[in-house]
């Protein structure tokens, strides 16, 4: 896998390995990537601007 390496605490890494396997991820990297992506999506708001516009204007109160 390309990109930078990130250090993880040994205990945390052990947990990541265990739960990645339990949850059906193909590797700990995939699990971590997904977890980080999910958190980033929350921060950035997963909805695109079009999606927001559609939801807000569908209200009727705003045209």
């Amino acid at each position, binding site marked *: 896998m390309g990109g930078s390496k990130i250090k993880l605490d040994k205990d945390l890494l052990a947990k990541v390995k265990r739960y990645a396997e339990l*949850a*059906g*991820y193909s590797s700990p990297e995939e699990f971590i990537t*997904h977890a980080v992506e*999910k958190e980033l*999506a929350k*921060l*950035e*708001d*997963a*909805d695109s*601007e079009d*999606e*927001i*516009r*559609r*939801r*807000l*204007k*569908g*209200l*009727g*109160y*705003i*045209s």
Partner: protein
Amino acid sequence: MKRQRRPTAWLICGGLWVVVASFGCGSRPPVGKRVIVLGFDGMDYGLTRRLMSEGRLPNFERLSRIGTFQPLGTSIPPQSPVAWSNFITGMDAGGHGIYDFLHRDSLTLTPYLSTSRTEPPGHILKFGRWQLPLSGGKMELLRHGTPFWEVLEQHGIPTTVIRIPANFPPSGSASRELSGMGTPDIVGSSGMFSFFTTAPERITDKVTGGTVYGIELENGVFKGKLKGPPNPLSSTGDTVKADFTVHVDASRPVAKIVLGDQEVILQEGEWSEWLDVKFTLLRFVQTLRGMCRFYVRRVHPEFELYVTPINLDPFHPAMPISTPAEFAGDLARATGRYYTQEMPEETKALRSGVFDDADFMRQASMVVEEEQRLYQYVLGGFEDGFLFYYFGNTDQISHMMWRAMDPSHPAHDPVADEPYRHVIEDLYVEADRIVGETLEQLGDDETLFVMSDHGFAPWTRSFNVNTWLKENGYLALKDPSRQGELEYFQNVDWSRTQAYALGLNSLYINVRGREGVGSVPRGQRQIVLDEIARGLMRYVDPKTGQRAIANVYSRDEVYQDREYLDIGPDLILGFARGVRGSDESALGQLSSEIIFDNTSKWSGDHMADHEVIPGILLSNRPLQRSVTSLKNLAAAVLAEFGIEGFPPRE
């Protein structure tokens, strides 16, 4: 009064005899008492009083003699999600956390709908262009606090709560619930219609809340697609689509529509029944199901086809809409399928010119018929405990038709509006009939409440709060020559902006450390806030010579409940009667003028100061506990069952 309690009742419904299931105690011992609350959204106290004095609301008049008739204090601000949350939780916005239809993420200033949000699936397995969610996504209700029916249930009282706003996804704590305002269509919006036309040039107004497709017929045939949501199983997020075909008769005003394995033949001006819409997510494996109705508006010389927003199918809801999950389907089995999306009256199609007044009133009357069929069924089976039932048409039709009964309204057309001059009054008369029908079902020791969440007022003048902020030096633009062009604050220079408005009554100070682009030091917040409040209160509409803002409230002072105070706007604007915040301002766009005429068909509204537009409260007997506002109405409902102490304090 008749008392009617049978395990199973029969009811005439649309000319058919249908079996009515019983809604009551289930395995619990019966309470032996029934309390019903009928909620008529937006029913105005002043208009109700006038129609009562004219003798047009005999059942309301009877309630006023034997029980209660009074104004009911609404929420600050008087928007439906806020108002109904006040009723549901017994708290104000500071406690339940719903301040406006729209909130903003303070960090990014992204607006979002205030009552619910969607969480993406937790684990996703990817393979090629497909992905498989290993755990489901989640819909989250953002209203905080304990709903009053939860307390009733804790006391062994079975509750049925139909379509109360700000309860999507359903709380899960009532014996039976069907969600209402806040429930999306299948694409997650408040309802996006589709309009297919060979003459798209007819639609000259801005179209929001729907999509207009210009089409061409080939030998009388058109192949179209209904758009669904992004495919959750596709890693590229492709939108799923469902194909349909229209065959237009060459000479007669008739069209045949083929959707999946369904075929309908519709005359010009005719609506289909609800049809299944199936979106394939993964062939042979996973399908997403919804439903829609087709309306052939015109056939010749131009062809026009309207398709409703694709609603969640109560038999196979793609999102949770009822408690228990099968309740939505049980209702549909008994009464026929029904709109599940929030606020289904097609205000958007009328506002954008896709519908004319006649189309709108016809579609709205179909919604009314569905609501009443459902109500008759639920009422017929209601044996014990508590029932809430919501009627939304009093609100939605008042929004669109206020102009027709108000000759001074800028959108009033004396000729075109004449057939609709009395439609709002007629709705009140119809509400009175429903109340009469309900009274017939109740015994003398049982209680009926009739209430509304707020009143109504004309919307004649639009006030752009963001433009006022700019003109008064509180908001700066990156490019002043583009004032009025860009939404979502895209033209705002945040480094020089002290305040901004978002939503229909909300104003925020651009606080450093709270807003991601904040410029006002926390210590200066109160000073800026006071200055803006004073300035807004002084503003006089140059056309009317009247103040545009009746009251400005600081969240820190006006709310008694404080747990979620920090997410609220710094100032809440109470507009004068006749004034509303402009559409543009609500989404962070400026206009060339601060205040201007509202010529839209959306001509009535309820964003005025809460003191200007109270709702109504009626009851069929003196109440055990007095009520002044929505906030203490639920306590009065509980008192009818001898329960005190609401809202619960931890």
